[in-house]
């Protein structure tokens, strides 16, 4: 449009089409307000293009442009303000303006500032300027008119359906950026609001289009066509993606890689920005959404593992003095835990030499905790004897059936099922303790013994207690063992949720990631099973198509061959060679069989999917109920006149339930809890 390559009026027309469609969507009668994300997207298209062509439009079609801007103003005023705290990285405002603008309002404000600023943009390159002379006298083109799909109507006004539609709309038109302010204003770069927006768009575009091309991605990120520095902005944008709720467009590990590459591409500038970002986020971690905290922990440990685990830990040594549940302390503890998983105990211990107090936060060094370990000095109990016998049966390659019989006939009658579960599970875990592969081999070969002993939820809960006891020194192996047992269907996902919400584990909620990791794995696996089935069904549907076509073709060939007749003694008789007829019949039969087999598979998978979806629903129901129960026990009640107590502001009227074990534990931690762990580690 600059240099008259495109006529400004056609652009204005496009703007007006988008704008009127957006307004229609918001109309209660003519449209469907649940689809506001789509309307927002249309208006976003207009606003995002203004930095690029606003000044030319202002020059060449000022009145029309003004009309469009007025239209946008009214759109902004009629649209619903988006304020979903569930998607915020930080829970409280921390002094930000109470009427925080949402993305569209903020974007509109930036463009208004741009228009008041004479439409001057620093971050948009103008390569056409050198060709201005030729372009101006060249052909002018019209921008093709766009047509927006008509809004989908809902007949029903049910809240549930409206909610589903809103969800669908959000999935289709997700908000690309949720701005994250990490650095104080005096530290970060100062640029015009519109320039910030343009550079953010550049960064998001590069991350999107160069995903999978490490070198090009890093290259373009560091060489954006702007004349000012933007490392802080780049860090804020990438972290905002890493911490995006509910999910970033790519796996979090992608952003880890990008940050590593940028540190290598800009060794003088970027690493220090990352360090500053980590410190800034660490300072505010108690205010951070817990999912974001977990992402930060996983990112940070992985990041450090690429840089020899070097970090100034002494700056955080003070966290050891905080209570066990303090978010900063838990953060450091969990980062160390993950670092150890990525390397090994001594190495990480060495890396925190300068902050020796933090050694108290390290996980235990020792390995498995086998109750029936044969030790000459200790006495040999019945459990030891049975365990040894089981080990020799396994080594002797006895069949699972034989072992089950032995357990059922000899162990259970004498000692009870609970004891049997105890010894058998601990012994099998011990046999499989050397590595992940050893574990899954044992579970594959002998898992049936466990499932025979633990058919119901009660026994499965017991089983998990045993796993947790055996691997009490390794949260990683606890999580892996439970996950694989669920995979081999020895434990149900519902049982795992029950176990995670049992009192012993609830006590861990604030001081460790251990129960949460297990819960995440369970929910993930349930969901993944469902999506695996969906994929298989899709593949089978395609195969059925192919099989149907093959079958039809074979039948057609057969019919054609059969219809070749000749007259013999006045009667029509098939003249095709009988051998060929037999062959074609064989093909047709086989093709039909194939079709039927695939159809049966498809039916079976569909039944499995239906069951899987039911399981998923049950899981979610149980999860929500478990959270409700756990929170209700601990929250102060709603007041008699229906007022919800304000827990945050330190409301003096808030009285916590009398028998609150949490509060009591927290007080103790303040004094001695912080030191409890260090005694255990003094010897290492």
């Amino acid at each position, binding site marked *: 449009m600059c240099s008259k390559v495109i006529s400004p009026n056609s652009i204005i027309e496009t703007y007006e089409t988008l704008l009127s469609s957006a307004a229609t969507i918001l109309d209660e009668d003519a449209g469907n307000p649940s689809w506001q994300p789509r309307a927002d997207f249309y208006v976003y298209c207009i606003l995002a293009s203004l930095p690029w062509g606003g000044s030319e439009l202002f020059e060449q079609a000022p009145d029309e442009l003004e009309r469009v801007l007025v239209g946008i103003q009214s759109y902004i005023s009629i649209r619903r303000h988006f304020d979903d705290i569930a998607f915020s990285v930080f829970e409280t405002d921390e002094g930000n303006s109470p009427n925080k603008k949402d993305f569209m309002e903020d974007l509109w404000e930036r463009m208004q500032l741009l228009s008041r600023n004479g439409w001057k943009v620093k971050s948009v390159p103008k390569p056409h300027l050198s060709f201005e002379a030729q372009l101006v006298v060249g052909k002018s083109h019209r921008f093709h008119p766009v047509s927006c799909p008509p809004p989908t109507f809902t007949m029903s006004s049910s809240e549930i359906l409206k909610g589903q539609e809103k969800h669908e709309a959000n999935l289709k038109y997700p908000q690309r950026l949720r701005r994250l302010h990490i650095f104080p204003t005096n530290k970060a770069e100062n640029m015009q609001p519109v320039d910030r927006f343009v550079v953010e768009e550049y960064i998001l575009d590069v991350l999107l*289009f*160069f*995903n*999978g*091309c*490490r070198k*090009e991605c890093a290259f373009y990120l560091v060489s954006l066509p702007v004349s000012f520095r933007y490392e802080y902005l780049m860090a804020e944008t990438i972290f905002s993606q890493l911490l995006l709720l509910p999910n970033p467009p790519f*796996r*979090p*590990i*992608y952003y*880890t*890689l990008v940050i*590593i590459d940028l540190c290598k591409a800009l060794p003088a500038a970027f690493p220090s920005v990352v360090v500053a970002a980590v410190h800034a986020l660490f300072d505010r971690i108690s205010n951070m959404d817990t999912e974001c905290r977990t992402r930060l922990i*996983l990112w940070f440990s*992985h990041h450090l*593992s*690429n840089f*020899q685990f070097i970090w100034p830990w002494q700056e955080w040594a003070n966290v050891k003095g905080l209570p066990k549940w303090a978010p900063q302390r838990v953060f450091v503890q969990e980062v160390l835990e*993950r670092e150890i*998983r*990525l*390397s*090994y105990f*001594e*190495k990480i211990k*060495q890396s925190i030499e300068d902050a020796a107090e933090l050694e108290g936060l390290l996980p235990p060094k020792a390995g498995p905790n086998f109750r029936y370990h044969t030790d000459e000095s200790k006495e040999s109990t019945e459990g030891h004897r049975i365990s040894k016998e089981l080990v020799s049966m396994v080594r002797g390659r006895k069949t699972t059936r034989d072992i089950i019989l032995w357990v059922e006939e000899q162990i259970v009658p004498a000692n009870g099922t609970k004891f049997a579960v105890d010894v058998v599970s601990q012994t099998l875990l011990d046999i499989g303790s*050397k*590595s*992940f*592969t*050893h574990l*899954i*081999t044992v579970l*594959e070969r002998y898992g049936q013994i466990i499932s025979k002993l633990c058919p119901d939820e009660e026994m499965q809960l017991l089983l998990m207690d045993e796993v947790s006891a055996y691997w009490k020194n390794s949260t*990683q*192996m606890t999580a*892996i063992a439970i996950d694989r047992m669920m*995979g*081999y269907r020895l434990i149900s996902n519902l049982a795992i949720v029950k176990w995670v919400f049992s009192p012993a584990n609830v006590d861990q909620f604030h001081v460790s990631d251990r129960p949460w990791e297990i819960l995440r794995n369970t929910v*993930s*696996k349930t969901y*993944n*099973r469902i999506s*695996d089935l969906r*994929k298989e069904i899709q593949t089978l549907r395609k195969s059925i198509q192919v099989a149907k076509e093959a079958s039809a073709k074979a039948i057609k060939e057969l019919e054609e061959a059969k219809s070749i007749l000749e007259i013999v003694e006045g009667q029509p008789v098939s003249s095709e060679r009988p051998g060929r007829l037999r062959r074609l019949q064989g093909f047709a039969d086989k093709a039909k069989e194939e079709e039927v087999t695939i159809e049966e598979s498809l039916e079976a998978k569909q039944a499995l999917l239906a069951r899987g979806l039911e399981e998923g629903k049950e899981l979610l129901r149980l999860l929500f109920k478990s959270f409700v129960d756990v929170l209700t026990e601990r929250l102060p009640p709603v007041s008699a006149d229906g007022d919800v107590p304000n827990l945050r502001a330190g409301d003096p009227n808030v009285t916590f339930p009398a028998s609150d074990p949490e509060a009591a534990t927290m007080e103790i931690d303040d004094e001695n809890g912080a030191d409890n762990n260090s005694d255990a580690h003094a010897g290492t």
Partner: protein
Amino acid sequence: MASLFKDPSKLSVYRDRRFPGTQEEFEAALLASLTVYVGNMSFYTTEEQAYELFSRAGEIKKIIMGLDKNTKTPCGFCFVLYYSREDAEDAVKYISGTMLDDRPIRVDFDWGFEEGRQWGRGRSGGQVRDEYRTDYDPGRGGYGKMVQKELEAQRELVDYGVGFQTNAPPQFDRADRKRGYGDRNDRGDYQRRRSAPDMARRATDSDSKRDANQEPVLTSSTFSFPPLHRHKTFIEYSMVSCTGKESQVSRER
């Protein structure tokens, strides 16, 4: 737009010579594969370390460690099997070239694990690359096997046959020997003794290639020693004999 820079059909520059099929079949296998090959690992990297790293790309189905054919201990590579193709792609995209256990690892699509592919194909039992490399890599047994043999042979010459100077065993806990660590060194000694005369002849040829003054001071303690603060043993894999079999049960999550 990424496809402007990368050829989506050319998934790997490595071509496994033992793949039974045509180039097209090989490429088709890579395109459908759920398995990734991980190379340049340290011998000491454990499955649990790999599990932690690779599970960030998706749910892992199986890990198969590459093992030295003779000692049945890890020899620096492994296969990671995922349940879904996207996860395998993410592993190749995001993990290849980054660090595992302080080493930059290589992650590539693999054409599909089969029983037997977990063994190193080098003559000494490890990977082929460890036969011929000339650098000193403490995470991968020190010098390459050929270089090790030559250096030992050189030592032999100097000793005038005054008893064979065995390498001191690596500093592992004595107790761990009971855990099936195996008679690794004894077997090694036997091999060296047997092939010594051949080595002696070859050593004289290659002597001229080496400038003795530039070689680092070599003592028996510089051969294949783990970093001292590790105090770790190798996990012994001979008990887990069906690492390769894909069972019916484990196809699903």
